């Protein structure tokens, strides 16, 4: 079974770490991740920039509405996510609009990625499911 682990913490605290504190945490995590990866258990992992860097595309309005800031409603739940490699926020929003056009309702939060570790899982019969 594939699992995603979603990481929650107080971003105020985490983003006030000094470079040295941050490096220490990343080094500790790196050791665990290396082992898990060698065991074939760990796929890609990433760290997001703070919510202040987020933009939200509200797909429930027509046309979709671009809002500064993170997704803040509580009546919807996190169902999945995409990782994009595009030039800038405008290009990311363009992709989000394209996806939203065929899957309206809810919202996409577009959050820049701070750290991306593209580890590969061994070939795995991934579960086939509907789009999030």
């Amino acid at each position, binding site marked *: 079974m594939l699992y995603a682990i979603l990481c929650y913490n*107080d971003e105020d605290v985490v983003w*006030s770490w000094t*470079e040295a504190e941050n490096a220490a945490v990343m080094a500790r995590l790196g050791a665990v991740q290396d082992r898990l990866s060698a065991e074939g258990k760990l796929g890609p992992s990433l760290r997001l920039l*703070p919510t202040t860097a987020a933009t939200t595309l509200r797909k429930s309005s027509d046309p979709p509405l671009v809002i500064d800031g993170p997704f803040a409603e509580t009546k919807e739940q996190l169902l999945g996510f995409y990782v994009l490699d595009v030039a800038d926020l405008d290009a990311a929003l363009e992709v989000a609009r394209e996806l939203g056009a065929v899957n309206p309702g809810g919202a996409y939060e577009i959050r820049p990625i*701070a750290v991306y570790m593209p580890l590969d899982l061994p070939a795995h019969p991934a579960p086939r499911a509907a789009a999030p």
Partner: protein
Amino acid sequence: MTDLAWIDAALTSARPQALSALLRYFRDLDTAEEAFQDACLRALKAWPLNGPPRDPTAWLILVGRNAAIDGTRRRSRQEPLPPEELISDVDDVETPLVERLDGAHYRDDVLRLLFICCHPDLPATQQIALALRIVSGLSVRQIARAFLVGESAMEQRITRAKARIARAEVPFEAPGPAERAERLAAVAAMVYLVFNEGYSAAGGEGEGEGEARGALCDEAIRLARLLLRLFQTEPEIMGLTALMLLQHARTQARFDAEGQIVLLDDQDRSLWYPQMIAEGLALIDKAMRHRQPGPYQVQAAIAALHARSARPQDTDWPQIDRLYATLERLQPSPVITLNRAVAVSKVAGPQAALELIEPLETRLSGYFHFHGLRGALLLQLGRGEAARTAFDRAIALANTAAEAANIRLHLDRLIRDSAPGGAARAAQ
């Protein structure tokens, strides 16, 4: 991270919101500060036992408020005249408080708390000291170290500034849109002052002092992120945050092992902190979509062009020159023209840059950077003697030892090159 370290960080990060909510409630800064202090002491006892609360800020506000009311009640039994207004509206505030604690609700509270520190009667240094003490909760000792003054002198300065703002009477009603925008602009300027105070000497002087001042940069960024969370659609707040992140990302590269300034062109760019750069670039990207250029955004866009250049020779100087031209229009100032001259020297050569800054001489004659840049341009033009005079002026006006040392480096090179045989070496 240990429990206590976590609690300490949580208390620090909750402080602006909790304190400003308590200020709205008690309408008196000293009472609010005492209440917050009290709540922190209780948190240090309760949280390690019961685990941290789900919303530390809301917890601190409730506990702080109750503690202060208890204290008032206790004192009122001994005092002949109870301050009725502090007690009368307890019950109607109690219940809905927790539900109302979202970003929108803190917004005007936090803005007010920051705004009272920007009182126009207070000189910049006092505004900064006050904000660091009240909003950030730095100790008087930490602030004194950052300003390189004694603790008692700083204590006095803060006490005087507090007395000044106590008389100022910032209204407690929610501000209208125009008033809010005005407050936000004043607060943004004050946050940038805090940053510059830290930036201007970070890493220089004695090692401990450099650290103490570097902490001011971190603090300014924390305040800017807080503002941005509360005012998510303000492009200038995005710009301000981006600007400080992009400048602060270079801290490790700005000074060498001896504490000497390393100029942008000579910096080891691998020492720039990539995470801060990523955040700064993302924010400026977000701000640009609003198409409402402002001084912070333009300055951040300039810093972003430097951050995006892997090597100094990759820098897009023509674009930087255009951005400085925009900045001159938005915020005319001889200092901005001076900065633009650096870009002009790269695009059109030292002679064009020198012509741009010569007319500024009367206004900037007391400014270190004017003479430093003028000397460097004259040097590039081969006018050694004139360059030397300019460098001498710059040294006399240097604010820090590192600034003076940097100019001395140019002077040494001049003296070496003007020695017999030196000119030939320099020409090669």
